[in-house]
């Protein structure tokens, strides 16, 4: 087999060296009744040619080259070629966790740059090397707040991504972490401060909001931060559309930021692999989950980087660890790092403004459901979302998300997203289908 670098004669020599007569002797130790009698019921090995054909055929069964106005946590941004080229460098692609600093400085240096850029984007002082994704970063942030405040309750806005909230409740369930949701203002689409006020109390560890929230609305931090902190709770800021950080004021009022980086050149890939992050204030550094890279020196006095503060982690702390996370999403964080260095300071702003402009053109021709300012995503009223999307699909356009799916009370509304990839012509088709004013 092409992945097995041995010839029959080499196997023979090795068996002789070991001192067994046949390769099966090597598993003789397995109890008779445990050994698999008949071979696995899977087809024989395929040639590379057939494997490529199989996946091409599967790909052809999916939407190919469609324009898309779906956002809702997965965004359609252009992926600079260099990001995908560099991540395929053998030295990046086929290495592992940089435990051995002396031959892992490539990854370590890049992760340090990644942590630094995430801090610059979020206005935080510490960022970890990555979490699985945005959805799992949220409960990890909530758990962190519980550890810090020694309180138990979590308050989460209904305008946080529905699937993030589902994951939060799964994680929280058996950790004595009651999770309560608070509502959104049906006029503005922003959080309902009064509802929050009524629910926050002395056992509230954290208040979790997302901005831009699931409806695309940009939240106002001041008020909620004040409220939370006045009650001794932490404010957790969640983002699902990382490109928004290019133009939105950094959430410096937050105590913890948890986000999803898919927008940074990570292909949608039917939902993963993506990369989540958690960033926070210096003072909470020992409560942050996941890996951290720190700067230090080598024995010759040269700058070097290494994994640090691992006493927080499971392989040292075991059941007392800040989290059970081990393998993270490093390779995806590398792609994001490359993406950020390609766009840079000016590029991220220009990119964000293009997203803003495209979405506002689209919105300007449709009837919005909410009034609050939005970035590249918004909710529009639609008589029959399903019918509209059907019609668009025939034109090789994937329409927006039917909000009724997650918010029964918002049935008859569609969540639309436009990015720098959205062509005016396609947007006009969507406008027409939704009966907007041309």
């Amino acid at each position, binding site marked *: 087999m092409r992945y097995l670098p041995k010839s029959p004669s080499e196997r023979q020599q*090795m068996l002789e060296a*070991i001192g067994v007569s046949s390769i099966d002797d*090597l598993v003789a*130790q397995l109890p008779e009744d445990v050994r698999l009698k008949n071979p*696995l019921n899977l087809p*024989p*090995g395929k040639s590379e040619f057939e494997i490529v054909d199989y996946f*091409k055929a*599967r790909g052809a069964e*999916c939407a*190919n080259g469609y324009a*898309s106005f779906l956002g*809702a946590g997965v965004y*359609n941004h252009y992926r600079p070629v260099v990001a995908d080229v*560099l991540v395929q*460098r053998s030295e990046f*692609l086929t*290495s592992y966790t940089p435990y*051995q600093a*002396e*031959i892992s*400085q490539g*990854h370590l240096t*890049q*992760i340090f*740059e990644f942590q630094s850029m995430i801090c610059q984007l979020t206005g935080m002082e510490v960022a970890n090397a*990555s979490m699985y*994704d*945005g959805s*799992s970063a949220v409960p990890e942030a909530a758990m962190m707040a519980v550890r810090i405040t020694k309180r138990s309750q979590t308050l989460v806005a209904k305008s946080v991504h529905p699937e993030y909230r589902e994951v939060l409740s*799964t994680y929280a369930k*058996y950790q004595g972490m009651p999770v309560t949701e608070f509502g959104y203002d049906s006029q503005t689409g922003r959080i309902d401060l009064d509802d929050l006020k009524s629910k926050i109390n002395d056992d509230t560890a954290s208040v979790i909001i997302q901005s831009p929230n699931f409806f695309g609305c*940009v939240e106002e931090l*001041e008020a909620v931060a004040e409220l939370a902190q006045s009650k001794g709770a932490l404010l957790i800021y969640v983002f699902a559309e990382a490109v928004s*950080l290019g*133009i939105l004021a950094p959430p410096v009022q937050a105590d913890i930021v948890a986000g999803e980086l898919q927008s940074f050149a990570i*292909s949608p*890939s*039917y*939902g*993963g692999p993506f990369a989540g992050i958690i960033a926070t204030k210096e003072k909470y550094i020992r409560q942050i989950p996941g890996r951290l890279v*720190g*700067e230090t020196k*080598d*024995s010759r006095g040269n700058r070097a980087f290494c994994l*640090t*503060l691992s006493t927080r982690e499971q392989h040292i702390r*075991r*059941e007392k*660890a800040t*989290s*059970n996370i*081990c393998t*993270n999403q490093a390779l*995806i964080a590398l792609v994001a790092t490359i993406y950020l*260095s390609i766009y*840079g300071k000016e*590029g991220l702003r*220009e990119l964000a403004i293009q997203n803003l402009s495209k979405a*506002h053109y689209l919105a300007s021709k449709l009837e919005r459901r909410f009034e609050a300012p939005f970035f590249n995503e918004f909710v529009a009223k639609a008589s029959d979302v399903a019918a509209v999307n059907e019609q668009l699909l025939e034109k090789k356009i994937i329409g927006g998300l039917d909000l009724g799916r997650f918010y029964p009370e918002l049935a008859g509304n569609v969540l639309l997203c436009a990015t720098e990839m959205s062509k005016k012509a396609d947007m006009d088709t969507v406008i027409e289908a939704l009966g907007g004013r041309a």
Partner: protein
Amino acid sequence: MIRKVKSHPTQDEPLLFEISSPGKKGYQLPDLDVPVIDPEVALGVSSVRKEIEHFPEVSEVEVIRHFTRLSTWNYAIDLGLYPLGSCTMKYNPRVNELVARTEGLAWAHPYQPETVSQGVMEIAAALESALAEITGMDAVTLQPAAGAHGEMTGILLVRAALEKQGNPRKKILCPDSAHGTNPATAQMVGYEVVNIKSNDLGMVDVATLDAAVDEDVAALMLTNPNTVGVFEQDIARIAGILHDKGAMLYMDGANMNALCGVARPGDFGVDVMHLNLHKTFSTPHGGGGPGSGAVAMKSHLEPYAPVPRLKKENDKWTWDYHRPDSIGRVRAFYGNFGVLVRALAYIMAHGGPGLRNATMDAILNANYIRKALEPYYELPYKSPAMHEVVFSDDKQVALGVKTGDIAKRLIDYGFHPYTVSFPLIIHGALMIEPTETESKGELDLFIDAMQSIAKEVEEDSELVKTAPHTTRTSRVDEVTAARKPIVRWKP
């Protein structure tokens, strides 16, 4: 004498922040085909950031050079043996990278209509059934993002099932040889962790276990082959003891590379387990991820599996969200799909018989190394090795050299070190897992290096204790790093 590598110049490179200069550009956007919007007008002045302070500005060619240069400071499987025990660092087939980038797959949005998603759903379904066949289990969920995430999912299934029976119970048993993620996971699911001492064969001591299992025990989290690389001889009885008391057997499948095609957990009493697709099924995870921690379960746990579940309805795949007993979601969407594509491609390439051959070569390689190094390093457990072998530094410690020093010296010989100081039950462990994708030539060079280092320890221990000597970065001061952490660049 070092036979594997020679010294050669490697490009140095500052941090991105240090090569930045205002006005350098690595990007160009197409011209806008709609009116440009002023952010301050659209969002309000207070919501708009003035700038991203000190954020780098570099050109495309500098980006290429920056990351290309950095990459040359890394070791990688494509460069040579990567014997990190328990991590199964095997060759990552390149065709898998290609197929994962197939347009219809890489650009599939998780919320796009199922009518235009049959291909991706078919792939997930095909992988689920292949993994069920390989593990001998009844059902599989692909949602967990990594092994630890799979552990949490699996233990949640156990808890949900027990709760349904009326009592979630209080304790999870973990052998003292267990990986740190096991106890950490148990704690996250609200269980108290009880450690079980291993016997002097490195296996679970059945008597001890028997005594420890009572009506408060929810499950035993067992790695098999365990972390010292030996197969639990009494696995059948272990399962029996648990099941008799209404407890379950969770298997940490990190070491499935020793079992594929040889034995199936489903056949020896395992109720639920996770697989590390990024280990056994060879998906690349440079720098530490991404992975996938697919969970395989027996039918009695299937009702509790995370939503959504794949279902075939009049010949079309559809996602089933109506699962009243489900533990809920452990991750948004459907898991690390791109990783799943690679894992399926890997399984297709080997095929049924092929997977067994791969396993046998993995075991062959481990035993070949064990035989050759036994005279030089202490072997705490004499039980037959499966896919990995764990030595201790007893002999070398006497001369003041620890496993960590030997590991660093190995770097001078052109190899990535083995896993250091794990499992914890072996003091000063050298945990070596070659995997099946290593040639005899590469193994001989490794053996040669390890033997040569053993001699160095006797003749010139200082040389070993101060290693590595040939790398661009010499031994790194991790203590200072932790004492006053600098975790981000500052102007």
